[in-house]
């Protein structure tokens, strides 16, 4: 799995650039490249649905982020307890990565077998639902409640943004 390692290293490098760049527009473009790398990783990990979805979602959020960062500067201040805060954050990250190393030490990538539900879905997708794409069979037949919640969430987001960004309000 050398490809996935290379893509992950590229994503980490682009994420560090996105975090540390002084210019907000450069940072937004860097987060776009992180999303494209994630789309490639999904394609390599045999999830073409998610690759398409990640690509279009990335472009959409990139357009809206560029709209949000037009003509605006980036303040950079080092006041406060800068050293202490950075040290504690890095310490927490080291503890987190150490615990993750201990927990994931014996788990190989792509090794194990999956649970009962996935086996049932893979076996009975075509006879029970008629869908050749098993992921679509799960999201639109077996777990339709999930998709209903997803649509409710995006509908709530639309209503919320239109309520936040409304133009009528108190007169200025």
């Amino acid at each position, binding site marked *: 799995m050398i490809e996935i390692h290379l893509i992950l290293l590229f994503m980490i490098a682009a994420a560090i650039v996105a975090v540390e760049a002084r210019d907000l527009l450069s940072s937004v473009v860097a987060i776009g490249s992180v999303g494209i790398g994630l789309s490639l990783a999904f394609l390599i990990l045999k999830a073409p649905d998610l690759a398409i979805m990640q690509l279009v979602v990335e472009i959409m959020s990139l*357009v*809206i982020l560029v*709209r949000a960062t037009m003509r605006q500067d980036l303040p950079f201040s080092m006041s406060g307890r800068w050293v202490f805060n950075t040290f504690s954050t890095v310490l927490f990250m080291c503890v987190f990565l150490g615990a993750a190393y201990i927990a994931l030490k014996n788990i190989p990538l792509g090794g194990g077998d999956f649970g009962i539900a996935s086996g049932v879905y893979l076996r009975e997708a075509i006879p029970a639902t008629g869908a050749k*794409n098993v992921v*679509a069979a799960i999201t639109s037949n077996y777990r*339709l409640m999930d998709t*209903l919640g997803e649509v409710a969430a995006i509908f709530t987001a*639309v209503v919320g943004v239109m309520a936040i*960004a409304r*133009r009528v309000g108190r007169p200025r």
Partner: protein
Amino acid sequence: MIQKGMSVIVKTVTKITLGFILLYAVYISLNGHTGPGGGFAGGVIVALSFVHIMLVFGKEMALKRLRSYVLRGLTCAGALIFLYAATVKFSGGCVPFGAFLEKSVSCRLFNSEITLPFCEMLIIGAGLFAIFVALVLLSKSDRYDSE
């Protein structure tokens, strides 16, 4: 930049390719059961094509064609139809007209293969473009220009 629109080359190419982009979005969203894709990806492509129109032809022309209440109406209608179709599938035909939709295998397939992705495409496409329009109109300089 946004008000005046882009050059004539970009406008002409956009006029030619716009239909193909929308056709590809419908293909992606209705192809979800036999290949990669799905309603959500198709809906985002629809929204991106409208954003493309708005960037190329300017704000006024895009909003003259597609009013804000049309977008809101499309989103709400898509959400209601999606809720009805999902309820039919949950209850196995215990809602009005549900027995007709769940009667045969072809009707069930039509329900889950055409209705649900199409409604999802409607909701996502209209809703995300409405969000983009709202965020563009929110800007302070634009507000002073228009008032």
